[in-house]
């Protein structure tokens, strides 16, 4: 029989100890979960394993021993490991050995009950299988969480194959919460132990970065305060600070460092990206600077540069002298004013002579200066380049002076000429009105002005030529400095971190996606659906207030109900019982109000309006088809209903009573309007008496009877209304026997009403 031992790869390099895992007897598999290191106390080990078994319900036990040491102490360790078998009894007992630094493995599985089974061999063959614990857990190939009742069934079903291994590893999370780096009774090694050392170092670095940043931030703020003090605001220092590119670059670097070591947290991804880019550019700058420094200070290159510097300066000076002599002659065939030409040429030649003397005076110290300047590369390549730009500016200072002289002279001349030209033409610049006005000059003013104008005009070509030449020279120097500054700005502003992210992880440059806003549908209250059903069992007075809202709200309520059923069933169930009590209370209150209205009027005429309202309200009960039929029939009537009613009244009673009962025709008209289709089918008495009888009964009984209990009266009208509505529905159909039995009842009610009217 072959025994399969699953061993985690993360424990291959750990020290010796006990093998902790689960034994699957069905498939003769031993799943090793962790290695328990020495020293340990057996009682504590047993307690830990008991806790793990209780928490994860996995049969975790000590499966055997793990030996990872050299060859020499193997003998004594072997005996010790053998003795451990008695402390932790388990069948079979695994013994895994591996030489440190070697690839030789030895696996043994022994059975203690060998004497009991004489026929079986003492040791089984062991198949060692390595598995990645971390991948097994992350892959989630184990079965999902199931109820405790079915756990046994699931376990039984998943016994076959590797599912048992996955299930064992997944359900043993409790065992993985502590490892050899934690302070506890036992020290375990498993997949969580691999990255702990690195994480500890990272944690230490993270905790140390806070104080370091604070220290550097305070140091930088101190430097900023020193640089921002009043001394540096004075003219000479501020002028030098603005002119020298080295000072500018140092100020720029100070800003960068302040940004890097600031303790304020980045508020948005843009600031975070800017800070990261700054860090990357500073690191690149310092690295390039150190490379330059090593290159310069190797093989005495600084000495060579110093030796080559003075001859270059001499060469430049000689070239300038040749240029000036060319200008003092006839440059490009142009004829200049010889006197002015000589004066200017000698002036500039004298300056060149001074410059050469200065260069030769400084030549012994050039090497030392360059050596110290080279050390500035430690601060970064940009600082070194800025210093180079400043050195070029100092070496070409004479050219700068020439340019300034020529420019000033040329500007002065142009300004004078423009002013004197106005004088020549007899005009003057009006400063107050900012325009040119005529002016009358004195004779001496005109004379001197014209004289100066003539002189300046004839000397202009010479001055312009000198200005042009020196401006070109200045542009040459500025171009070189511009290239250096361009390189410095490139290093300072290159977004290396962003480029790196763009190349390696483009997704991190994207902005955060907008969170999806869950939109809940606005559902109408479900109470609106109930009125139609409730109305069926309610009397007419209670149904009147809700009648006007039936069509629209009913439809909407039904739609809402369908949505509720389609989405969530429980809310529907909850809303239904809560709606009924509210509905009951509201209907009860409305019925009380209506009853008060019926009792309040002192005269009989307001009763007519109430009765009319009731009649109109009862119309709502029919529904749309009946209403449409009624309207159709009403429009088709060829005669006026009023004369018919008067005729009927006259027939029944005497003529002198008819004028007294003039208000009656109004009520008759309303009745006729409500029920126009019934007249052509039946006689005049039956359609008039039936609904008016029931309504009048309600109106008459109200004021006559002073009974305080109101709940009984709503019931009585409803009882009467039922047969009335039934009668109406029957009368709509062409049934000849329908209206017959209803004749005597309305007649009696009608007789009751008249005594009241007579009394009024």
């Amino acid at each position, binding site marked *: 029989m072959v025994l399969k031992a699953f061993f985690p790869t993360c424990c291959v390099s750990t020290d010796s100890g006990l093998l902790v895992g689960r034994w699957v007897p069905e498939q003769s598999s031993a799943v090793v979960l962790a290695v328990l290191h020495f020293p340990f106390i057996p009682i504590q080990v047993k307690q830990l394993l008991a806790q793990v078994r209780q928490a994860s319900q996995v049969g975790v036990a000590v499966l055997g021993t793990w030996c990872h040491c050299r060859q020499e102490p193997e003998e004594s360790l072997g005996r010790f490991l053998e003795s451990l078998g008695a402390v932790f009894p388990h069948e079979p007992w695994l013994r895994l050995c591996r030489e440190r630094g070697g690839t030789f493995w030895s696996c043994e599985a022994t059975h203690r009950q060998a004497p009991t089974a004489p026929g079986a061999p003492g040791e089984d063959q062991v198949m060692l299988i390595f598995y990645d614990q971390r991948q097994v857990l992350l892959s989630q190939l184990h079965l999902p969480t199931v109820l405790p009742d079915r756990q046994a069934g699931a376990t039984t079903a998943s016994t076959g194959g590797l599912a048992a291994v996955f299930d064992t590893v997944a359900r043993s999370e409790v065992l993985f919460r502590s490892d050899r780096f934690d302070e506890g009774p036992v020290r375990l090694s498993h997949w969580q132990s691999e990255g702990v050392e690195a994480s500890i170092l990272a944690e230490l670095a993270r905790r140390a970065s806070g104080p370091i940043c604070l220290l550097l931030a305070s140091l930088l703020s101190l430097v900023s305060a020193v640089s921002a003090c009043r001394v540096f605001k004075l003219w000479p220092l501020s002028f030098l600070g603005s002119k020298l590119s080295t000072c500018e670059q140092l100020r720029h670097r100070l800003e960068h460092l302040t940004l890097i070591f600031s303790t304020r947290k980045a508020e948005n991804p843009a600031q975070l990206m800017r800070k990261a880019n700054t860090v990357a550019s500073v690191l690149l700058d310092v690295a390039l600077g150190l490379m330059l420094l090593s290159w310069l200070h190797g093989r005495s290159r600084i000495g060579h540069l110093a030796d080559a510097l003075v001859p270059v300066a001499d060469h430049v000076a000689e070239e300038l002298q040749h240029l000036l002599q060319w200008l003092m002659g006839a440059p490009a065939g142009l*004829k*200049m*004013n*010889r*006197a002015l030409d000589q004066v200017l040429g000698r002036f500039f030649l004298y300056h060149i002579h001074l410059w050469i003397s200065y260069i030769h005076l400084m030549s012994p110290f050039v090497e030392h200066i360059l050596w110290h300047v080279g050390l500035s590369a430690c601060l970064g390549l940009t600082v070194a380049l800025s210093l180079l730009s400043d050195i070029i500016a100092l070496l070409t200072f004479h050219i700068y002076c020439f340019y300034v002289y020529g420019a000033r002279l040329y500007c002065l001349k142009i300004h004078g000429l423009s002013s004197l030209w106005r*004088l*020549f*033409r*007899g005009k003057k610049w009006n400063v107050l009105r900012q325009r040119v006005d005529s002016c*009358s*000059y*004195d*004779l*001496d003013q*005109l*004379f*001197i*002005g*014209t*004289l100066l*104008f*003539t*002189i300046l005009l*004839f*000397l202009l070509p010479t001055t312009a030529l000198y200005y042009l030449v020196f401006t070109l020279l200045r542009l040459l120097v500025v171009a070189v400095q511009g290239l250096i500054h361009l390189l410095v700005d490139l290093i300072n502003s290159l977004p290396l971190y962003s480029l790196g992210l763009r190349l390696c992880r483009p997704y991190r440059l994207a902005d955060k996606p907008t969170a999806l806003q869950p939109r809940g549908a606005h559902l109408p209250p479900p109470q609106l659906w109930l009125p139609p059903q409730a109305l069926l069992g309610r009397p007419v007075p209670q149904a009147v207030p809700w009648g006007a809202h039936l069509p629209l709200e009913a439809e909407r309520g039904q739609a809402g109900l369908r949505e509720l059923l389609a989405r969530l069933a429980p809310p529907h169930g909850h809303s239904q019982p809560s709606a009924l009590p509210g509905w009951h209370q509201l209907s009860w209150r409305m019925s009380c109000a209506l009853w008060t209205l019926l009792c309040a009027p002192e005269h009989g005429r307001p009763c007519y309006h109430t009765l009319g309202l009731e009649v109109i309200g009862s119309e709502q009960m029919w529904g749309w088809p009946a209403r449409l039929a009624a309207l159709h029939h009403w429009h088709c009537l060829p005669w006026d209903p009023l004369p018919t009613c008067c005729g009927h009244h006259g027939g029944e009673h005497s003529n002198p009573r008819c004028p007294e009962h003039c208000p009656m025709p109004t009520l008759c008209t309303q009745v006729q309007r409500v029920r126009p289709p019934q007249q052509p089918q039946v006689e005049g008495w039956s359609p008039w008496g039936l609904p008016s009888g029931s309504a009048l009964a309600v109106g008459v009984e109200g004021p006559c009877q002073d009974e305080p209990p109101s709940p009984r009266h709503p019931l009585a009208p409803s009882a009467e209304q039922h047969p009335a509505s039934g009668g109406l529905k029957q009368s709509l159909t062409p049934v000849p026997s329908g209206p017959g039995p209803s004749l005597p009842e309305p007649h009696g009610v009608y007789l009751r009403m008249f005594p009241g009217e007579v009394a009024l």
Partner: protein
Amino acid sequence: MYAQPVTNTKEVKWQKVLYERQPFPDNYVDRRFLEELRKNIHARKYQYWAVVFESSVVIQQLCSVCVFVVIWWYMDEGLLAPHWLLGTGLASSLIGYVLFDLIDGGEGRKKSGQTRWADLKSALVFITFTYGFSPVLKTLTESVSTDTIYAMSVFMLLGHLIFFDYGANAAIVSSTLSLNMAIFASVCLASRLPRSLHAFIMVTFAIQIFALWPMLQKKLKACTPRSYVGVTLLFAFSAVGGLLSISAVGAVLFALLLMSISCLCPFYLIRLQLFKENIHGPWDEAEIKEDLSRFLS
């Protein structure tokens, strides 16, 4: 109906009025239309000698330019001693200064408020600046070709003559520009003289003959016309004489120019005035004779 017989019987006279109804068509032309014709209402009658007298101002300026050029030529050729010219110039200036005050008895000075001290200061300014700038003037146009200098001088002097104020109220007149052009021309010519002293004397002479001399002549003409005529004749003969010493052909041409300007042009003007016919009549545009300035802001 009733008016027509009256019209037929009586001869109605045409009137140039619009508020009455007349029995004439709109394009009726009365026989008295041409009687209102007028000629040369605003024409001025010129006298021959008066015009000749006024043309003397032009003669003066032309002679000034001629004298300046002649003097420059003499100095350029080295025939004239600078010191002699300087002395003569200063003496002439002093005589002119005294005459300037004597002619009007000092009324002009009192009216203008110009003091002798101010005049002295101006003179010193002129002499100092001219003497100080003379070395610069000497070498000012060394590198410029002589033809360019001559051309510039000619144009400037012509401009001086064109823009000069001869007494006529014309828009082209600009005494400032005229004087400046003359000084510019003198500086250009002075830069061609051999030494700085020559340049200094030349520029000073230019100031005297282009700025001071016209002022004296203007006052002389206003106060004593008779002596003005004499001075003009003397000046003209001097100019022609000087030019004759250089070039006979030039002198003859210049004399002819002066004669034509002073004698022939006035005669021509008067003869042509006989043929002048400005016609005025009822067809003229209406003129508003009332002053409308009170309606302007």
